[in-house]
Every structure is written in structure tokens, then in C-alpha cells.
């Protein structure tokens, strides 16, 4: 399945290299960007690809001596921000996965009035551009007293993740044989127990993948914290990076890349760890 075309024996050496060359050239911009992010954080100044000055950890001093970094002076300290970001990502992914797997199960396995319509509705929701709702969400959060609070942003982020999560989980549940479900019912289980005891363990790969994906999305989320938590200590890392970047007058790329790398590192680690599962999650999404 992986090799679409095996090379016929005797064909020349160079034609088989062409796809590699094309891929490499196409991928080069990405590779260069991330390579720059990495090494630029260890030099005071990088012009183009050329580092100026010796290797240094100076850019990373925000970790142990934040007060000496002028850009960070008027900002919340980075460790609490990291914890905020972690809480935000963890809570949104766990709650999102729980709610998605419940609704996904219902859509996959239960008969109820309006099922078909609601399933279509889930797809429609997915198409609602979040920017269009931001203004109204502002009003909703103000009304609920959740504006400028981490909890409010968590709820909004979870809600935004639902259409995708429900659709993905429904796909995973659809792939569990009906015999198992029927068997559990005949064995005497109710739907809740069938879901918890039989179905959830069987869609574990889906649960894991969705958890990782929602965690990454939560970790990366810039807009919602930026718009709905404009002040205070409850900001996240994204707003910090954006804040430094947005100052504009003098851009200290060394500091920025170090902070950026610090921010992106957990996601990269998770990605290396769960790459196969993440790739697979999209497989169930589109059929037909």
C-alpha cells in the first residue's frame, strides 16, 4: 500500500531520484524555517543563515533571570503562563474528548428523533467561522460573567472543538462491529454501561489521537485567550509571544526564537511520540 509504484527492474537510476529531488525542494522552506528557529535561539544575532557572534545561552535567560529581559518586564512571569497554558490545553482536551465521545457514540449507535438533522447540523457548525462568532461570544461571556477568565476561554475552546471531535469519534465508533454492541445488550448491559465498558476501550486509539490533537490545539490556541482574556495573570504563552512580536519597534529575534522554541517544544515532543496516531485520525473522517 505504501509503495504506489515499484520501480521496474532495469530502469535508469536518475528517474527514481526525481521524486526525491522534487519533494526535497518543496519541503526546503519548512525545513529552513524550523532549522532557523532552532539555531537562532542560540546566537545573539543571525543574519540570513549566518550567525553573528559565538554560541550563547543568553537568549534563554528569560527562564532563570526574566527581569533582565526588557521585553518581559511588564509581562506576567513565564512559568505561571506555562502552567496556565498547560491547564487550558489539558482541560479542553479531556473535556472535549469526553463530550465528543458521548455525542459521537449517540450519533453512531442510538436512534433518536432528529438524528440525521443534528448530524448535518454538526457539519454546519464546523463551517461557522469562529471569527464571525467572536463578537457575539464576547457578549455571551460577559453575560455569564466568564469574560477575562480562564474558565470561559476553556468552555469556548471546548465548544469549538466539538464538531470535529464528534465527527471523528463517530467515525471510530462506526468501525466497531455491531455484533459487539448487540452482544453487550443481550448480556444485560444498558447503553451507558455498553458505552463505558465495551465501546470506549475499543476506540482507545481514537480517544488517544483526539486527546493529543485537542491538547495541541489548546496549547497552540492564540485567538481566544488573546481576545477573551485581555488582561491579568491568566494569559497563555501564545499571548506572550504575540505581545513581544507585536511590539514591533525593535525585534529581538534571538529572544523571540528562544521563547518560541520553549513554547513549541512540548508540542513537538508530543508529535514525535504520537505522529502515527495523528496521521490516522483523518483517515476515518472522509469516506465515500
Amino acid at each position, binding site marked *: 500500500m505504501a509503495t504506489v509504484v515499484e520501480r521496474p527492474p532495469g530502469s535508469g537510476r536518475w528517474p527514481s531520484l526525481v521524486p526525491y529531488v522534487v519533494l526535497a525542494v518543496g519541503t526546503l522552506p519548512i525545513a529552513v524555517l524550523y532549522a532557523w528557529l532552532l539555531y537562532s535561539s542560540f546566537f545573539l544575532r543571525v543574519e540570513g543563515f549566518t550567525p553573528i557572534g559565538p554560541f550563547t545561552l543568553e537568549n534563554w535567560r528569560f527562564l532563570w533571570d526574566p527581569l533582565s529581559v526588557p521585553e518581559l518586564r511588564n509581562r506576567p512571569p513565564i512559568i505561571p503562563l506555562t502552567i496556565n497554558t498547560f491547564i487550558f490545553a489539558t482541560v479542553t482536551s479531556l473535556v472535549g474528548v469526553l463530550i465528543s465521545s458521548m455525542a459521537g457514540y449517540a450519533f453512531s449507535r442510538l436512534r433518536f428523533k432528529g438524528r440525521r438533522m443534528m448530524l448535518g447540523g454538526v457539519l454546519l457548525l464546523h463551517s461557522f467561522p469562529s471569527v464571525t462568532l467572536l463578537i457575539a461570544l464576547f457578549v455571551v461571556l460577559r453575560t455569564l460573567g466568564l469574560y477575562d477568565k480562564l474558565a470561559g476561554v476553556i468552555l469556548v475552546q471546548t465548544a469549538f472543538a466539538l464538531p470535529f471531535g464528534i465527527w471523528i469519534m463517530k467515525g471510530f465508533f462506526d468501525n466497531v462491529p455491531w455484533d459487539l454492541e448487540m*452482544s453487550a445488550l*443481550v*448480556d*444485560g*448491559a*444498558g447503553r451507558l454501561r455498553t458505552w463505558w465498558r465495551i465501546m470506549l476501550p475499543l476506540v482507545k486509539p481514537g480517544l488517544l489521537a483526539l486527546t493529543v490533537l485537542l491538547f495541541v490545539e489548546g496549547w497552540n490556541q492564540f485567538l481566544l485567550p488573546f481576545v477573551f482574556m485581555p488582561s491579568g495573570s491568566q494569559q497563555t504563552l501564545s499571548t506572550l509571544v504575540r505581545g513581544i512580536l507585536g511590539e514591533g519597534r525593535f525585534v529581538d529575534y534571538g529572544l523571540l526564537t528562544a521563547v518560541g522554541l520553549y513554547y513549541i517544544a512540548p508540542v513537538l515532543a508530543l508529535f514525535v511520540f504520537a505522529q502515527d496516531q495523528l496521521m490516522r485520525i483523518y483517515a476515518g473522517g472522509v469516506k465515500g
Partner: protein
Amino acid sequence: MRVALRGLTKKFGEVVGVHELDLEIRSGEFVALLGPSGCGKTTTLLMVAGIYRPTSGQIFFGDRRIDHLLPKERGIGMVFQSYALYPHMTVAENIGFPLELRRSVSNEERERRVREAAALVQVDALLDRRPAQLSGGQQQRVALARALVKRPDILLLDEPLSNLDARLRHEMRGEIKRLQKEVGITAIFVTHDQLEALTMADRVALMRDGVLQAYATPTELYARPVNQFVAEFIGTPPMNFFAADLAPRNGSLVARTEGIELALPAGPRGAKAPPTATVGIRPEHLAIVAPGQGEASGEVYVVEPMGREQIVDVQVGERRLRVIAPPGFVAKIGERVGLRFAPEQLHLFDPASGARLA
């Protein structure tokens, strides 16, 4: 526990899955629902299990009407075609699952009953394994143990043998039949394989297109099929059929078609015989005789030795008749032979309706 289906009907939208099915199963009886795929047999089973809701009709267990009850309230055990063992649980956990759901069963009692049920089907040595580590036959046994562990009133089996290889199938056929009698449970099983139905069941319900065709013991089904469909479906190799003209001669009837002339021992019951009929005869009721003898003559088309016997196709005019010949029979392709019909084993069917004439 007696089971009764009354006018049971299931429609999927416009499509009729099962139509007005009436069936009575005696307590302790082993009944097969037999038929080609799409005949409604599995649909019927799933209605009895409570997975499908009947469009109309009623289901009784004993004297109690149960078609409004949930599967878990019906006191049934079920073995699925795929066995439906829970892959993330061990054999012991699988068998114990139905008991786990009952508050009244203590942990100690559950363990004891799991061991009992496992011993009954000889998987007591495998209790710590996972389903993926079991052979097909072992999975089948575990599924049986899980179905029986809660001591249900009725056991349902959906194509229980179709996922096994030929040898295991034979073995499990006997096992399941013995087990059913030993436990004394009322059991219904679904199969598309007439041999399974005949060998295992006390009575066989043969269905086609959602309609019950026949409900009788295996012997009756074989000896007196009520219509051409039943005659065709039961028995291997299948019954030979040919159209013939019926004419009276010397007070009895003669069936005649190209190359064949048969005196019928007793004409179709009823006032007057129809002018034509479909004649059926099983291959085992035909014998090859010397050319010129017997009621038909033709030439050998092909010979398939089976060891214990041989299947010989004989070309008679336009049609081909299949004959079971003894192992010693030797013939070349194209050789002329005669065919002798066992007179008591002829079946006559109405050419239009397929109903049995005599």
C-alpha cells in the same frame, strides 16, 4: 421455555424483511431457521433477541408477551456469527460479563459460575487468555459459555458455525447439539447451510423472502417437501427437476418428456390431473442401468468420484440429470446409459406455483 411468534412482521422502510411469521417452539426444542441469505432468518432471530423491534406481531416466551422488553429483560443468551467476544477482556472476564451486570450475583458466585460454564464447554484452561489468542473453535466455545453463564431460558445462535473451517464445523455441530440437550435449553439457531440444519435441529423452519416455507422435522422436509423451493433447498446434491406432460394410461398417470417416460404410482390427489407438472427426483433415487433399460436413456456427461460414491451427470435430451452411482461404477464420457427411477421417490410440483401435487 416455550417460544411463540404470532404474525411477526418486520419492514425496513418499504422492504419487507419478515412477513406474518407464525412459529411455535416447544420447551427444550432445538429449532433451526434455515434459508438463503436475505430470507429474514437473522431478522427473526434479532427480533426474538430484542435487538430489532417488530413492525407488527407478537412474541411470547411461555405465556408472557415479551416483544416490548429490552434484550436484557428477556432472559436470553446469544452466540453471534463473529462470536462478538470483547477483545479487551480475558476469557474469564468475557464469560463473567453477563453476571457482572447482576447485582444479586456475588463475586465468589460469579467466579464459581464462570468456571462451571467454562468447564461445560472445555475452555477452563484458557480463562486468562485474550480472545485474540484463541483459535476459532475455542472462541466459539467461549461465546457459548458466555451465552449460558447467566442460565438463560432461551439460547439464540446466529450462524454459529460459519466462521469455522470444515473439520471444526463438523466437530462443533455435534458438540452444540449435545450441549443443547444436556442443558435442556430451548434453542433457536440461524443457518444458511441445510446440512447443519438437518443434522442439528429437532425441527427446521425454512424461509424465503421473509415468508415461512416449511416447518417440519428434518426427515419430513427431506421425504415430503411441501413445495419446489423446499425440495430444491434440502439435500445435496440438489434434487433433479424436469417438466413433463401428464397423460392417463391404464388408470394411472404417465409423465412423459423427451427421453423419459415414467409411470406414476399414484396420480396427483384431487379430481383431475393437470396437463403438465414439474417432476423432481433426488440423485440418490436414480440408478444407472444398462442402455435401453430403465425409464430414461441418455449419455454420460461427466463423472465426479467422491470416494464413498460418485456423482454422475447424465445428459437426457435437453436436460441433465444428476445421479449418485456406487464407487465401482465405471463409465466414459459420452457413453450411453439407462436410468432407473425409484418409483416411490418421485415428487410432483405445480409448474406455476411450485406447490406439491403428490
